[in-house]
């Protein structure tokens, strides 16, 4: 086990644990306003201080983690469940019309500036966590489709795949039985990367007010609220920001650690 794997795994587990814990217990009620105790620095009764309404920042971060993680996780799920089968199908008949269609569509989606389209979707269909999931998820589809296609293509030329074809197995079955298990490691590593990108994207969307809506706390909006207070009480901007950094860092380290653990030569997509 490498250092990356342990550190990344620990950080990720910490955030997942905190989010899970928030369903049962938080230090304070996240919706309770306490104006006299506003903008308290970390330490004291509130471990990470309070915001401009006197809400407990630690509690807000714990509940906010739920939204971030849920949005990013479901978006990765969308990407995998739609993208991987498409990529495998494209690779199984490389050069055919289906491959052409899938590859061109993936290129097209890549050509759309993701954030703009996310904003467009949330604007037309209204802001909220669900539309954020949709907006981020759509852009995960071509990532997984391309990754799966590329990895599968190089496997299709291998002799054990030819042997399976000689054994009379059809392409769908070969994809499921031989290709998928052999690209699973790569997909898992890519998942951690897309997960971390999803966390960042969700933070960005909720920063501009297009993510989860009040009163549900979210990391991005905590930062938006802190923007005008940054010189007055730096901790309201620093702490949520560092939380995002550590969550993303944890996931990326976990991804690197997993990759080194499986096979250091795995090539993931980074954009």
């Amino acid at each position, binding site marked *: 086990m490498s250092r990356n794997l342990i550190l990344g795994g620990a950080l990720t587990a910490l955030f997942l644990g905190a989010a899970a814990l928030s369903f049962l217990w938080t230090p304070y009620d996240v919706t309770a306003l306490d104006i006299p105790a506003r903008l308290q620095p970390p330490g004291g009764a509130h471990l990470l201080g309070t915001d401009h309404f006197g809400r407990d920042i630690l509690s807000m971060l714990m509940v906010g983690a739920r939204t971030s993680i849920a949005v990013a996780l479901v978006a990765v799920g969308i990407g995998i469940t739609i993208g991987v089968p498409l990529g495998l199908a494209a690779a199984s008949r490389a*050069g055919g019309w289906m491959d052409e269609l899938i590859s061109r569509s993936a290129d097209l989606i890549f050509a759309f500036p993701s954030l703009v389209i996310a904003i467009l979707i949330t604007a037309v269909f209204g802001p909220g966590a669900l539309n954020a999931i949709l907006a981020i998820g759509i852009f995960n589809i071509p990532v997984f489709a391309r990754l799966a296609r590329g990895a599968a293509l190089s496997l299709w030329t*291998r*002799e*054990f795949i*030819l*042997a*399976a*074809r*000689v*054994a*009379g*197995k059809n392409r769908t079955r070969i994809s499921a039985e*031989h290709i998928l*298990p*052999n690209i699973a490691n790569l997909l898992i590593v890519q998942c951690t990367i897309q997960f971390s990108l999803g966390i960042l994207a969700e933070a960005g969307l909720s920063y501009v007010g297009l993510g989860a809506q009040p009163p549900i706390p979210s990391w991005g909006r905590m930062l938006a609220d802190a923007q005008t207070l940054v010189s007055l009480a730096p901790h309201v901007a620093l702490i949520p920001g560092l939380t995002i950094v550590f969550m993303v860092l944890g996931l990326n380290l976990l991804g690197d650690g997993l990759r080194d653990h499986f096979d250091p030569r795995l090539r993931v997509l980074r954009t």
Partner: protein
Amino acid sequence: MTAPLLTIDALSVTIHGKRILDTIDLTIAPGEIVALTGESGSGKSMTALATMGLLPQVAQATGQISLDGTDLLTLPERRLCAVRGNDIGMIFQEPMTALNPVQTIGAQVAETILQHSPRTPRAMARDKAREALHRCGLDLPLTRYPHELSGGQRQRVVIAMAIALRPRLLIADEPTTALDVTTQAQILDLLQDLTRTEGMALMMITHDLAVVANMAHRIAVMQTGRIVESGPTAQVLSQRTHPYTRALFEASDHRPHLPPRPDNGPLLHAQGVTCTYPLPRPGPFAKRPSFTAVRDVSFHIGRGERVGLVGESGCGKSTLTRALLGLTSIAEGTITLGGKAVFTDHRPNLAVRRRIQVVFQDPYGSFNPRHRVARLITEPFHLLPDPPQGTARDTAVAEALTAVGLSPDDAHKHIHAFSGGQRQRLAIARALIIRPDLIVFDEAVSALDVRVRAQILDLMADLSASYGLAYLFISHDLSVVRGVTDRIMVMRAGRIVEKGPTEQVFTAPRHAYTRTLLDAAPHLPASPGGA
């Protein structure tokens, strides 16, 4: 005899505490060709890299490598750079990847010249590069890129780079292994000419004894990091003092005992088979051009008959194999097995497919690394309407493993527990398990060391006797085909140019191309007293 140019004295190399080379002694005189030979992992390439000062950084070397009195092992990196390319040139096995794809061949040859005398005017460096290419028999524009050249041409470029400054020592690491026989013969001639005309010493590394038998002055045989036998070529060839040398020679021209061919009637018929591939469109709306890989090929294979298919790379033999196996659809013609079509309406016919199986070349790539042996070799059961289950399946696995000389216990192991030769046995077990009438051996012994190759050839002969099996043996290597087939077909540019009984084709070839192939193929001199 002239004083040696290169003297390797008690060279030992260890990597991570493992001894890779063990007290190697070797000398090469100017104008002399010395061959280093042995199986993979014997340390031949490592000896070459040590001489170039290009050992991996983790390697530790002791002993002496002196080039004309200078010890290369103790030379600082800066001075080694001045020796490489100038005093010692090196050429490599894989011409397809040895050249930088984004630079012209002229620039790459000129680089050797400019590297060692940076003040050479560009035009003069270009002229010298052109001259070096010319000496290597290549008169192409210097502005060509590597991808525009064939494998043989690229290897000539690599040689031109190595000899541009007329080094005193040339190291050639398996320079012809990746090439076709006719190209191989030309490259070997070129290397011999260069040593003769330029007085250059040549260290020739090869696994193929036949390649060096006709050109090396001396041979050193290596095994697991040691030189076990060395001496003048004629002496090593005739005396074969060391048991390992003897084993190598015997395996090299091994002829398995082929049981007489049963005459049980016809099995496979190919009639007027043509296969085409679509090529990329030249323009967005242009019609897709196509390439005809196999053109109007007709042949038959009888029950229990052993047929060879020989041809150089790109001749269409792989495409033909795929068509026989039902992996590629054919554009024209028919292929029938026992009277039934392999393909009907562009769909493979499973009832026919289960009667043909295949063994591929690469023992490492032909198994899914995630599955165990039992699952791997029973994969063809998928072709049966009613595959055996439970004990019947276990019995079938045990039988197949035993038939190929492995143990039934191996069924539960993972593939990485097996060596290359054992994997090829497993591949044969996989082909055998549904008792096919015909097995296609697609370059099935090409990736193996000679001694393992001999064992697999014996196994094939045994199986053909005990199961009455017919096989189609596809190979680029003529000498191997000769020992294991009744009849051979020679393929060139998509057509079968000659077919006939094996001995007849070898002794009295009718087609000019067959003669070229036979002349180009290197062969060992007959063994003394018959081994």
